[in-house]
C-alpha cells in the first residue's frame, strides 16, 4: 500500500542531506583526533552550507510530500534559511569559544545539526504528528547542548532545568494534539481546518487542545508565563549554545505557532485573540521590566529575548484575520530575521568578553570597552540600538513592519503597550552603552577570527540593511503559508 515516492524525499531534500551529513559526521568525528575538533566544526558547517544551498536553490519551488505531512513553500524556505544561518553562526561562535572554555568535544557539532534539522522540519510541518516529531528532534539535542558546559554546575543545571521543563511542556503539546485529534479526527492541518469548518462553532475539546498546543509553543518561544526557564537556561548554557537557542528555538517555535494556528485554527480566532493579546502584553511587560534589574548580561539578554518574543506575539494576534494575516506573518518573519541578526551579534560580543572562569559576564565588566575596543563597542552599541528600535538599525525597521501589522489588525492598544515597553527597554539597553563609553574600566577581551567576523558582519548588516530593507521586506512578504 505504501509506496516509495521520490517526491516525498525531494520535498525534504535539504533536511535529508542535513540529517545524513550529521549521522556521517558523528562517525567521522571518531577519527578526528582530540584537539583538532575544528575539523568537525568545519565539516558541520559544510553540511549546513550545502543544505542551505539546496534550500536557496529550490527557493521558488512549492510542493509537499508524505501525503501532505510536510510542505515546502516560501514560509518554510524563509525559516529554513534563517535557521540554517543560525546554525552556521552558532558554529562560528562555538568554534574557538568551546575550545577556549575547555568544552570542545566533537559530538557538539552533529548534535547541533540534529537540532537544526528539527527546526527545519518544524518549518515544513503540516501535520501535528510531524510537528511533534520536529519539536522533539529540535529539543532533545538542545537539552544536551545546554548541558554541554559540563562539568560546570551552571551548565548542567541549565540542561536539567531545560530538559525537565521542556518535557513538561511537551506533555501539554502532546495532550493538546490528542484533544484536537479527538475533536476533529485528524492530525493533518488541512483536515483539521476542514473539520472545524464542518463543526461550525468550535467544540470545547478543540479549543482546549489548541490552547494546550499554544502553551507548548509558548514555552518554546519563551512567552510569559511559560518563560521562566529562559533566564536560567540562557545563563547556564554555553554562550554559543545560548545564541543558537535564542534564535533557532524561537524561530522554530514561531514557525509552528504560525503554521498551525494560521492554517488549522483560523476559526478559533475570536476565542483565542484575548488569550494571545494577554500573552503578548504580559510577555513584553514582564520581559522588559525584569530585564532592568539584571546585572548579568546573559540574563539581561535572556529577558530581552523574552520581550522580543512578546513583540512577535503581537503580530500573531491577527492569525485568523484573512485580510491582514499575510502581512502579520510576514512582519513576524521579518522581525525574527532582524532579531536573529542583532541577537547573534550581541551574543558574539558577550562571547568576546567571557572568561574561562565565568568572569566577564557582568554588565559592569563592559566598562571602558569604548576605549579599549572601539569597534567592538560600536558594534555592541549598534546591537543595543537595534534591540531598542533606534535608527540606523534594522531594529527600527523591524518594529515599523511589526507595528504596522498590529495597527492594521486594529490592535492599537496592544501597539501602545508595545511601544511603551520598548521605551522601558531603552533604559537597560542604554545602560550597556553607558557602561561601555561613559565608565572607566579595563575589560579583557578575546580576539578570534570567526567571532570577530560574526559580530562585525552582524553589525554591518544591522546598519546597512536598515537602509535597504526593500529586498528583505519582499522576501518576508513572499513567504506565504501554503497548505496542501
Amino acid at each position, binding site marked *: 500500500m505504501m509506496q516509495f515516492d521520490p517526491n516525498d524525499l525531494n520535498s525534504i531534500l535539504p533536511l535529508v542531506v542535513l540529517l545524513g551529513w550529521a549521522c556521517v559526521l558523528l562517525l567521522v568525528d571518531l577519527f578526528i583526533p582530540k584537539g583538532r575538533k575544528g575539523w568537525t566544526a568545519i565539516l558541520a558547517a559544510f553540511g549546513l552550507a550545502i543544505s542551505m544551498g539546496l534550500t536557496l536553490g529550490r527557493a521558488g519551488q512549492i510542493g509537499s510530500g508524505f501525503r501532505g505531512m510536510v510542505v515546502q513553500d516560501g514560509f518554510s524556505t524563509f525559516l529554513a534559511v534563517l535557521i540554517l544561518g543560525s546554525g552556521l553562526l552558532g558554529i562560528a561562535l562555538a568554534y574557538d569559544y568551546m575550545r577556549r572554555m575547555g568544552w570542545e568535544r566533537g559530538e557538539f557539532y552533529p548534535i547541533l545539526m540534529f537540532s537544526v534539522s528539527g527546526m527545519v522540519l518544524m518549518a515544513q510541518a503540516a501535520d501535528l504528528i510531524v510537528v511533534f516529531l520536529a519539536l522533539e528532534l529540535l529539543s532533545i539535542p538542545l537539552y*544536551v547542548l545546554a548541558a554541554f558546559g559540563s562539568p560546570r554546575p551552571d551548565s548542567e543545571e541549565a540542561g536539567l532545568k531545560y530538559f525537565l521543563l521542556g518535557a513538561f511542556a511537551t506533555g501539554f503539546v502532546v495532550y493538546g494534539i490528542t484533544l484536537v485529534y479527538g475533536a476533529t479526527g485528524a492530525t493533518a492541518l488541512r483536515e483539521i481546518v476542514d473539520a472545524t469548518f464542518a463543526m461550525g462553532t468550535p467544540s470545547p475539546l478543540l479549543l482546549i487542545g489548541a490552547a494546550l498546543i499554544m502553551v507548548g509553543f509558548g514555552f518554546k518561544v519563551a512567552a510569559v508565563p511559560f518563560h521562566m526557564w529562559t533566564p536560567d537556561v540562557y545563563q547556564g548554557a554555553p554562550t554559543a549554545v545560548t545564541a543558537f537557542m535564542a534564535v533557532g528555538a524561537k524561530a522554530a517555535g514561531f514557525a509552528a505557532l504560525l503554521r498551525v494556528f494560521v492554517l488549522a485554527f483560523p476559526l478559533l480566532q475570536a476565542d483565542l485573540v484575548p488569550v494571545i493579546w494577554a500573552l503578548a502584553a504580559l510577555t513584553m511587560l514582564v520581559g522588559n521590566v525584569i530585564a532592568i534589574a539584571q546585572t548579568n548580561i546573559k540574563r539581561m539578554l535572556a529577558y530581552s529575548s523574552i520581550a522580543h518574543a512578546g513583540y512577535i506575539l503581537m503580530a500573531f494576534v491577527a492569525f485568523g484575520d484573512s485580510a491582514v494575516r499575510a502581512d502579520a506573518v510576514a512582519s513576524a518573519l521579518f522581525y525574527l530575521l532582524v532579531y536573529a541578526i542583532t541577537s547573534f551579534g550581541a551574543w558574539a560580543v558577550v562571547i568576546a568578553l567571557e572568561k574561562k572562569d565565568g568572569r566577564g559576564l557582568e554588565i559592569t565588566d563592559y566598562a571602558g570597552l569604548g576605549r579599549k575596543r572601539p569597534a567592538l563597542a560600536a558594534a555592541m552599541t549598534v546591537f543595543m540600538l537595534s534591540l531598542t528600535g533606534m535608527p540606523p538599525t534594522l531594529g527600527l525597521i523591524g518594529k515599523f513592519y511589526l507595528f504596522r501589522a498590529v495597527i492594521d489588525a486594529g490592535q492599537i492598544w496592544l501597539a501602545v503597550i508595545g511601544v511603551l515597553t520598548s521605551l522601558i527597554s531603552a533604559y537597560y539597553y542604554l545602560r550597556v552603552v553607558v557602561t561601555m563609553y561613559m565608565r572607566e574600566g579595563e575589560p579583557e577581551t578575546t580576539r578570534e577570527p570567526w567571532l570577530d567576523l560574526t559580530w562585525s558582519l552582524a553589525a554591518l548588516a544591522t546598519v546597512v540593511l536598515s537602509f535597504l530593507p526593500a529586498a528583505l521586506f519582499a522576501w518576508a512578504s513572499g513567504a506565504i503559508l501554503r497548505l496542501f
Partner: protein
Amino acid sequence: MDLGIPLTHYLLVSAILFTMGALGVLIRRNALIVFMSIELMLNAANLAFVAFARSFEQTTGQPVFTGQLFVFFVIAVAAAEVAVGLALIVAIFRTKQTIDVDQLSSMKG
C-alpha cells in the same frame, strides 16, 4: 473488540493520569520521579489517543491508524528523552551528589 466501555471513561482516566503527572512534577523533588511524572503525562495522552482512534474506528467503520501511529511515535520519542534525561541526571548527580531538583537553584532572579 468493543469492550463496552464508553469513550468518556477512557478520557476521564486519561485526564486523571495527566493531572497526576502534572501534579507530580510540581510536588516531587526527586528528579527521577519528576521525570517519571512527565512520562505519566505522555502516557495519559497516549491513552486518550488510542481511545479516540478506536472510537473513530467504530463511528466510521474503517480502520484508523493515525492514533496508534502517533502513540508509537510518542513512545519512541519518550525513550529518546529518557536516554538524554537520565544522562543529564547522572551528570548532575556526579557534580552535586544529589538529584533533588530543589537543590538546582544556583541561578535565579
